[in-house]
């Protein structure tokens, strides 16, 4: 039966996506960037919307939440998956509200008066059935996909506004967004880039060789020399894994040291992060901060058994150390991030 086939086909895809996520986390599979993950998640959610059985918006949201919980459990550090799920949930809410005819403004206002009087009963509202809801939701998800495809280009277009000629720019590790950003600026301006290699995985080496292909003057330095050379650096431009709700970052190991050194020398710290990396998580859960990689990447000697070794993957950078966020919708200060977040996600979706 076609219905059953569709369902099995759908669950197969979900399963394969989950296993991909799990494998990437352990480092065995190919390393995929956040943008790819975001696109695949969104495509999968579109498929779920199209093929799964649901009668009204509430059921659809339940299905998506269930799958979303499984996906985030497969790879907790890959926050773009959760972010995309929350975006789609918000899209469903919006489309539902639009179909119902009520203006979006009044429904989303979170005044204290409303909270006290209405008493959180908006859940029941999603039980109504609309025939065009499916089409509308799928169209909105398509728009989201187009937005995702254009994020890197949107960010790189802003490069010339921030980089002047003969600058010395410092970066750490490997970020595809920053790479595109710098390459775009290099087409018109001449500047010098210093890349901190970010041991133990040394992704900085790849970044440096890639930048050199575009004839950008690049220097590779070991992590220990970050403070030593910082006095000659004009700007620090970094990418990040996640932007947290308070405007802080969860970024690659060593970024906090870089941020402190930049603060000490009063060098501006610019973070290039597309909007899909914005996550409603807050930094006070220590488990979420870091992920420990297996320590044989740093120590190979026989005394490993007598010694504790730590190899964290991520660092938390507080928002006071950051000067500017550059995203596909423009530049923002870290103090504005909470507002952007309220536009992207509905508060009830923060906990999946």
């Amino acid at each position: 039966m076609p219905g059953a086939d569709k369902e099995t086909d759908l669950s197969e895809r979900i399963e394969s996506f989950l296993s991909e996520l799990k494998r990437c986390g352990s480092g065995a599979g190919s390393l995929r960037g956040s943008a790819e993950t975001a696109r695949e998640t969104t495509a999968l959610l579109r498929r779920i919307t199209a093929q799964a059985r649901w009668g009204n918006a509430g059921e659809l949201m339940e299905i998506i939440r269930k799958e979303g919980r499984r996906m985030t459990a497969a790879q907790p550090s890959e926050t773009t998956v959760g972010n995309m799920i929350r975006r789609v949930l918000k899209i469903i809410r919006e489309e539902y509200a639009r179909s119902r005819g009520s203006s979006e403004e009044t429904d989303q206002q979170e005044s204290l008066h409303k909270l006290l009087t209405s008493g959180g009963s908006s859940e029941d509202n999603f039980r109504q059935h609309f025939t065009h809801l499916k089409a509308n939701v799928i169209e909105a998800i398509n728009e989201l996909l187009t937005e995702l495809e254009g994020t890197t280009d949107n960010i790189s277009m802003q490069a010339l506004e921030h980089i002047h000629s003969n600058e010395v720019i410092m970066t750490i590790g490997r970020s595809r967004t920053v790479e595109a950003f710098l390459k775009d600026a290099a087409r018109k301006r001449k500047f010098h880039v210093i890349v901190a290699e970010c041991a133990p995985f040394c992704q900085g080496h790849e970044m440096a060789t890639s930048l050199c292909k575009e004839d950008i003057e690049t220097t590779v330095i070991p992590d220990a020399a970050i403070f030593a050379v910082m006095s000659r650096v004009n700007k620090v431009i970094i990418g990040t894994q996640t932007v947290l709700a308070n405007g802080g970052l969860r970024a690659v190991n060593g970024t906090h040291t870089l941020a402190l050194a930049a603060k000490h020398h009063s060098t501006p710290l610019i973070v290039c992060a597309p909007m899909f990396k914005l996550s409603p998580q807050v930094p006070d859960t220590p488990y979420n901060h870091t992920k420990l990689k297996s320590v044989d990447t740093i120590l190979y000697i026989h005394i490993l058994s007598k010694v504790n070794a730590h190899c964290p993957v991520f660092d938390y950078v507080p928002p006071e150390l950051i000067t500017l966020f550059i995203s596909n919708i423009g530049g923002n200060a870290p103090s504005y991030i909470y507002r952007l977040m309220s536009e992207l996600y509905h508060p009830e979706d923060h906990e999946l």
Partner: protein
Amino acid sequence: MADSDGRQVDGVNHATDKDVKLQEIALAKNEGKELTKEEKQRLRKEKKQHKKNKKDDKGPPEKEKEKEKASVPAPSKPATQSPAHKAAPAPVHASESAAAAEKPAKSKAELRAERRARQDSERTSKQGKKEGGQQSASSKPKATPNELQPVVKRLPEHVQVDDPAALKKLAKKLERQQVPLRSDYGYKVSLFSHLHQYSRKSPPTLQISIPATVIHPSIVRLGLQYSQGIIAGSNARSVALLHTFKQVIQDYSTPPNEELSRDLVNKLSPYISFLSQCRPLSASMGNAIKYIKKEISNIPSQCKEEEAKGKLQACIDSYINEKIILASEAISKYAIEKISDGDVILVYGCSSLVNHILCKAFEKQRKFRVIVVDSRPRLEGREALRRLVKKGIRCTYVLISALSYILPEVSKVFLGAHALLANGYVMSRVGTSQIALVAKAYNVPVLVCCETYKFCERVQTDSFVSNELDDPDDLIVTRNGKSHLENWQTVKSLGLLNLVYDVTPPDFVDLVITDLGMIPCTSVPVVLRVKNVDQ
């Protein structure tokens, strides 16, 4: 000596009677006697003669230049009173002559008048100084309480690589001393074009004949050990240097008609040039060499050779004992007071002194655990880890990028130092300033441990002007079978930077523990002054 390093001489064989005369004049100067007018004139004439011989090779003699040069040595000689500053006249008049050549030519009469006026003023000031009492001839010029020392110091060669004139001067000097010149390797980052960058794959001994005749074989071995990184670490290098000098003194025999006190110092110069070609001298090595040279020149001339040699070896032994071994005992005693039970101590890299302190504290039954922070490409922390684990101390190991992760657990940071500069900055292995910065941000106390023989009169505010560049190939690493930087030489616009040292500003350091006690970072010049007065 006026005829060594300080002058541009073409070959080692010029008239020996001239040498003797010059030596006598120099001797007289050393003993503090006023140079008689005739001696001064003779000296001036000799210098002019040498300059003329050199100029004849180059082309038309520039009389104006010589006049300027002749006027300059006179005032500069009374100003520089010690053998250690004999090198100063050459660059002083080199720079002054360069300046003079640009100035419009002055008439001879004007120059003579100028010169006489200058000489008179110098002589009267010198008389005033001489009334102040006897000064030992070969000691460094002491800062008398009411007079500050004019700084006529020579800029070290190893930070003048971008100056072709300085490079030519070095090449000539090395040729004269028969020491091979080491060539730079690889693309240098533009910010550091004033420093050398050598490759470990091309050691400086490639051009030396075996057996080495000019350079003592144990010095050749020491140089190789330095350049390959077999001996690393400030204390280790100084101790190795001093032991090798003991060997050299043992094998030395005074040639006839020579004084041991002067000839031995001359013999040591090419050795020191060779060692600094292998690896630039550290501040501790510089201080040790100054001490030895002073001891050698203090040997009275009537001392017999065997006696003199024995005395020198005893001096060296006592220096090592006092300044290094006993100093580390004293520092450990002070530092152990600062370690309490339940402490979590963070150390960086492999400092012999800090390892010693921790081992001693462990023997005294203090309960603490250690976090060893390490960094690429040297990975010296593994050596420290090995030593501490052997003692039985509980250790944790992280790389420097994990510093923010591990620092909330830490209660104290102990750092070693390569040198302490006169403006309070701490010069140490690259990465130390980063650790001090992050520790300050987390409010963790930073204690630096350093012996007083590493204190140095230089001042520096950033890590660029005077540093050392290590082999850039060390940064290449192979991960998962791929090494991205393998062919970095072929990629234009790619540079690798492998710094060795960096300077930590004094506001990051809470306390410096030395053998004289526990002092704040800013008291370093006080200690230097006290040391100079003692000596």
